[in-house]
């Protein structure tokens, strides 16, 4: 076999305490300009409301701050370091041009309440992105206000409820497949819908017979992820939509896996009524260690009156503005207009790709997932042999015989220089390994990943202890989560 450079090697690892442990009186990293107005007597202005002391806030110098955060950063894995195959999270490359354009003066410093007359640039960006996303999803209208995917789900279900209410009956429950993300049932509860579980069939798809028997006039909507969390496209999608629509229900699509569809198929064309997108997944805005996201909600015409306020409109004079007079609206879900900075990045991504680029992206994402599936089939158990779209789900069934579980394999993968895949999800696969390479990975990087996974499978057979005790190459290993939860220490406190 051809020699390959293994991915992980040790490198210099700094120890770094908490910023508070570096603090001492008199150090500073700030400087204010001289005051050009008279000084004030704070006690006189504020009286009893004046604050006397800022407690244990740190006092450190600029170089200390730079080193502190730079050292901390070296303890993070990131897409910029290598493959990050977290299934269902779509960890694709975050283009740097997105960051550059989001920082252009008038875009970064626009105030949300500045007059519309001098906000045409921002409004133009909102309009263009809205139009692109409507075309990509095949829907009729959109709101960009929700701040993340779960927030989009809530906004979508609020519109579903308002729609049913307008027909005289808000209905009682939402159907959710057992393979769904946890946010789906949590969202349904926030909108006061009861959750009814819908089981999957032997191929990992919605069990259409169950759906038919569970569907009735109490069901407001089905929340469906398509492709679902197994990376499987719901082949009976038209039937699913028909069953719902026949009884007046709506089809909600969780767009978490839209990276498998863009430019190839449009949810609006296969019967979806409401869906959210995750700009931080499909449209390349950075995950930033857990956010910010953005969760636009696209809808069919019939739901348009219920969009959150305000709605962007073109005024008679051709300029853009906001319409606040929306009597049927579900209301506002966030102050101002949403995570605008993410709109800028997503639009730059769409522009950098164009129609051909977006189609190619989807094709590459699906091709990559299938390449990994082929490379690991037989070595890891594949519980569902249904065709794979953008992600593939294995299980630890073979390795579990040696006492090694999905989390152990994941931890060992760290030693090989990769971020783990998603572990133990979806819930319908015991011991799941959910792998999503995205289009960003080259064949070379995926080959290294496949080699690493094969090597770990061999270790499980020959030396399971090495896997069970992994990772071995990180500064800290197997942190005690039980102790953390039993006696939570959620902040630093001075010792004396």
């Amino acid at each position: 076999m051809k020699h390959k450079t293994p991915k992980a090697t040790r490198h210099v690892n700094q120890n770094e305490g908490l910023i508070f442990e570096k603090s001492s009186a008199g150090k500073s990293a700030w400087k204010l300009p001289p005051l050009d107005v008279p000084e004030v007597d704070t006690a006189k202005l504020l009286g009893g409301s004046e604050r006397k002391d800022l407690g244990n806030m740190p006092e450190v110098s600029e170089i200390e701050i730079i080193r502190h955060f730079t050292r901390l950063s070296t303890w993070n894995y990131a897409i910029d370091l290598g493959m990050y195959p977290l299934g269902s999270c779509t960890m694709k490359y975050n283009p740097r041009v997105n960051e550059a354009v989001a920082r252009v003066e008038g875009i970064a410093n626009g105030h949300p309440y500045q007059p519309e007359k001098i906000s045409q640039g921002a409004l133009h960006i909102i309009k263009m992105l809205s139009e692109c996303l409507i075309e990509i999803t095949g829907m009729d209208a959109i709101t960009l206000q929700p701040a993340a995917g779960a927030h989009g789900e809530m906004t979508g279900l609020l519109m579903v409820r308002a729609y049913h209410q307008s027909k005289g009956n808000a209905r009682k429950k939402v159907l959710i497949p057992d393979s769904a993300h946890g946010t789906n049932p949590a969202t349904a509860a926030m909108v006061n819908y009861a959750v009814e579980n819908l089981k999957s069939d032997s191929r990992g798809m919605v069990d259409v017979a169950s759906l038919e028997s569970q569907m009735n006039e109490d069901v407001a909507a089905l929340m469906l992820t398509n492709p679902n969390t197994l990376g499987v496209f719901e082949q009976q999608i038209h039937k699913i939509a028909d069953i719902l629509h026949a009884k007046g229900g709506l089809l909600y699509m969780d767009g978490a896996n839209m990276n498998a569809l863009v430019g190839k198929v449009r949810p609006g064309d296969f019967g979806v009524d409401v869906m959210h997108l995750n700009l931080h997944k499909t449209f390349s805005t950075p995950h930033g260690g857990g956010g910010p996201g953005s969760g636009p909600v696209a809808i069919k015409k019939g739901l348009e009156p219920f969009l959150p306020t305000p709605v962007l409109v073109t005024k008679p004079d051709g300029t853009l503005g906001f319409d606040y007079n929306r009597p049927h609206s579900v209301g506002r879900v966030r102050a101002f207009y949403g995570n605008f900075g993410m709109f800028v990045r997503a639009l730059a991504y769409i522009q950098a790709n164009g129609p051909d680029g977006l189609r190619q992206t989807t094709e590459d994402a699906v091709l990559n997932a299938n390449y990994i599936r082929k490379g690991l089939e037989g070595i890891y158990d594949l519980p569902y042999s249904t065709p794979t779209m953008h992600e593939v789900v294995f299980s630890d069934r073979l390795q579990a015989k040696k006492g090694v579980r999905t989390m152990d394999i994941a931890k060992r993968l760290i030693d090989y220089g990769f971020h783990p895949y998603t572990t133990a999800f979806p819930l319908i696969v015991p011991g799941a390994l959910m792998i999503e390479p995205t289009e960003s990975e080259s064949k070379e990087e995926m080959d290294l990943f496949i080699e690493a996974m094969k090597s770990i499978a061999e270790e499980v057979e020959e030396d399971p202890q090495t896997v069970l005790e992994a990772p071995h190459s990180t500064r800290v290993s197997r942190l005690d989560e039980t102790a953390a939860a039993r006696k939570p220490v959620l902040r630093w406190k001075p010792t004396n």
Partner: protein
Amino acid sequence: MLKAIGLRSVDDLFAPIPAEYRLTRDLKIPRQMAESEIVDFFRQRSRENGDGYTSFLGAGAYFHYRPVIIDALISRGEFLTAYTPYQAEISQGTLQSIFEFQTMICELTGMEVANASMYDGSTAAAEAVMMAVRLTGRRQVVVARSLHPEYREVLATYATHQGMPLSIAAFGGDGRLDLKELEKAITPDTACVLVQSPNFFGTIEDVDAIAEIAHKHGAMLVVSIAEAVSLGIVEPPRQADVIAMEAQSFGVPLGFGGPYCGVIATREKYVRQMPGRLVGQTVDKQGKRGFVLTLATREQHIRREKATSNICTNQALVALMVNIFMTVYGKIGLRELATQNLAKTAYAAGQFAKHGKVLFAASPRFNEFVVETSEDPYAINGRLLGHKIVGGLPLRKFFPEFGNAALWCCTELTTRSAIDTAVGLVAESERSVRSAKEEVEEVAR
């Protein structure tokens, strides 16, 4: 690669999708653009977006100076392109930084625990109220009318389907929550009172008195803080049970309204009803200090429909900006920064008071104030725009009873000359209205 998989064409990969739904044409979106074209496109949009204007707008979004090291540090790929820190061993950078963030938010708010962030101040306030509803087992919520009106709207949206009736308590002539109205609005079913301080008009609420009334009736007090810099010089609402904060002022660009950084802080005993991610300290198998996401049994990926909230993605990178900002200014700098805000505002309010009417003048305020003019503030603002100045926010958009009043804001970045120019134009407006009135009176005589 196709050969390795055993397929002939890429189209075979999409065979599972029923043919009638496959798109056989190009998407109708703009053509592919080169990087130089994209940069140029956004530069043009920037020029159409208030670039080069001096602004007196606040109202929940504040223009403060952002130390350059914030962007230098958050642009490191290890922070920018990492996911939620579920794999603790390779996420210690994000985890430790959140732990420091939680600590500093506690120090500044006087609370015992703070979460890793919420979407923004408005949703944080709504989630804090829902937390109080769960904790008290009561349903009704009293909301101060001096709360940011868009926060109130968001709360109304969240509350609609959760059986949480809202009642609004009016403010008095001093621009602060009217305590008599508050007493009237509270019922035995009141879960919490929600106030903002400094409130929407920039006035500092009498939190002690409000807390006493709320607690007397067994209700919790939720305080929203929209202007985080105020915490440098204004006593935090230590009597609150939950604080819902917008931390945008701490190093986050205005960005036409987002992304910002909400936070919830509270007492330790309420932590298990708190929404959002939390980072806790622990040890690894060698006894070395490290950090993990903890108390996840509150969250949606574990508890599903029984979770405290559906929140998943939060505002981590923005919280990192906030964290760096708090570290840069620290114990002394934050106070000095807040004092400059106070001084600029005191000067501006004093100058405006010479020509127009500054409302709620007797109440303590931080960096916003309300100016009532004889002329429509939209008309005055129209003239200010000609001087590349964006005037205060006309309040009748949200409060029809205010007529010609506008909400003005000064920060450390507001210059004396901008204040003098704005005051000059307002003075001119007052003079011309007055002389027009005199003319009319003359004619009438």
